[in-house]
């Protein structure tokens, strides 16, 4: 922890070529992710594809634009630990909330169906926006 070099010797300067190449890759991936939605892979697989592409983009940004590839390892640890904590939070909450969904659905089907919102503008076309009967 105490052996870092001074900037002139050690700070990594990313070459212009690398920066431009990374940017190019990000643009290509953006095009790809838009194109992927034109193909019907089933709604689950489409989400997976979109997330995989987004994650590749995120990794590119983090490793190169954010210097994590060349930086002190501890910063990478901070980043990874934070991401893992988000994953932990989202996944545990997700597991619980999905497992009690039936009790919410039962309530919806048994209770008199109350609309969540007040009726919108009295326009015949907007009737479609009303809740199911």
């Amino acid at each position, binding site marked *: 922890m105490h052996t870092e070099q001074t900037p002139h010797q050690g700070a990594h300067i990313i070459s212009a070529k690398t920066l431009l190449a990374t940017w190019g890759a990000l643009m290509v991936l953006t095009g790809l992710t838009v194109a992927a939605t034109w193909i019907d892979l089933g709604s689950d697989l489409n989400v997976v594809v979109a997330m995989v592409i987004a994650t590749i983009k995120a990794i590119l940004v983090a490793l190169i634009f954010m210097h994590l590839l060349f930086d002190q390892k501890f910063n990478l640890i901070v980043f990874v630990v934070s991401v893992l904590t988000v994953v932990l939070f989202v996944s545990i*909450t997700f597991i619980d909330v999905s497992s009690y969904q039936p009790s*919410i659905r039962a309530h919806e089907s048994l209770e008199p169906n109350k609309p*969540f919102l007040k009726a919108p503008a009295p326009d015949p076309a907007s009737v479609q926006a009303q809740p199911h009967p």
Partner: protein
Amino acid sequence: MTATTMPMDTSEPTYLTQARGALSWLLTLDHKRIGIMYLVVTSASLFLGGVFALLVRTELLTPGETIMTHDTYNRMFTLHGAVMVFLFIIPAIPAAIGNFVLPLMLGVKDVAFPRLNLASFYVWVLGALVLVASMYMSAIDTGWTFYAPYSTSKAVGSATSVGTSAMGAFILGFSSIFTAINFIATINKMRPLGMSWFKMPLFLWALYATAIIQVLATPVLAITLLLLAIERAFGLGIFNPALGGDPVLFQHFFWFYSHPAVYIMILPAMGIISEVVSVFSRKHIFGYKFIALSSLAIAFLGFLVWGHHMFVSGQSPLMSIIFSALTFTVSVPSAIKVFNWLATMYKGSIWLATPMIYALAFIFLFAIGGLTGMFLGTLNVDVHLHDTYFVVAHFHYVMVGGTLMALLSGLYYWWPKFFGRMYSEAGARVGAVLVFIGFNGTFFPQFILGSRGMPRRYYAYLPQYQGLHMLSTVGAFILGIGLATAFGVLVYAAFRGRRAPANPWGANTIEWQTASPPPSYNFHDQPEAGDPYDFEGWVYDAGTDGYVKKPAVVA
């Protein structure tokens, strides 16, 4: 370092006398002055929260109305909880004692980001003002937990400022995060030569583990409160079932922070106890690595057990079972700490000065707090005890019996370093005894109340519970007197106490190697870091009633 150990040069300006005037305090970047300012404001919060507590306890003297109405009572316990949690317990040890001691323990001149440190203080002040003012003026009565959908329904209180209060707590969260960032960066990057991770004082390990929790958990509270405020102001609908939202989701969000927050409260306390037990036993701490790593283990496990607050909330039984199992894992690192403190005392040379008395009180009360935690971690028993006075008693044993005892222990321990004055041992002991009796008198009866079925947050109760409630109320007043005595002794000492030697206890952590109080720049010479728990290099000096470095053997 060897020949000129700490001359007690009283003519040299200290951090207290370096500059004068209110502005020199308000605009200071000196971590010591910021620590003292935090100490002042958190103590004021303790006083405020304590007054609310006494009002609550007075109301509960009789089953019906004693001194206030339903709504006033509901506001009082909300204010008590919110002030104590957000304004006192969470910042007290890290922001006040930690700010002062951490750089000194590392032998550096300041924390890594002094401006951020001052900013975090003012963020705290702003958050505190918003929180207290909005809660008081618009009468928030949701409890400090802000559970949706009560907190999002417009009927709450008399006005619509649950949102404003939530923003107050939101702002306070950032103060906590900034302090934590500062501590992690300082410990990581500024340890002196010779202080490897496993030569760090245990208080720093505890602060480090705490800071990790603060950085990773507090933002989730921030987003929760932000969503709550928006929900309230604009009808967002994520937590509100009337708009298709899910109130149990709010509890997941809330406890993801608020359970780890319990460890934000207790970990620094355990760090103080590790220091005090070792110094006052004058014996190397037993099982250093286990204690250090158990802090990290508690911080890690703290993120996995939040659902044990939700066993009866409508959480799925599957998750309840997983959370219960994980909850019991926390008992292992906690028990390790207690056993190691006892082993440290074994065959030591134990000096029952006030810091040590509070440390022993901590072990006594934390043992009860920890053991009663087992009742609440056990699923079927928790179903009976949840949201009763048993829970109230349990968390007060952990937070007051734990954190407050450790805070007092730490204050008495470092007071000579803070102000260069010794406190009155006799007065301090009277305070400690009153606090101990008052505390047990207040909260032990609540275990019985809870187990017999008395629910918490009740304004009126069945007459059968009155005897225990009265006992508890009497205890609360004794506790109040005890705390007033304890703080009175400290304040008196700060101004009128006997001059303190640089190292009154013979401790070997670096902060005792500089003058008491330290100069602005902390150290004359870069101090050496050795084993923080090796006391053999210090000998008692009757002249100063302190300890001095053993003269080096002249070759």
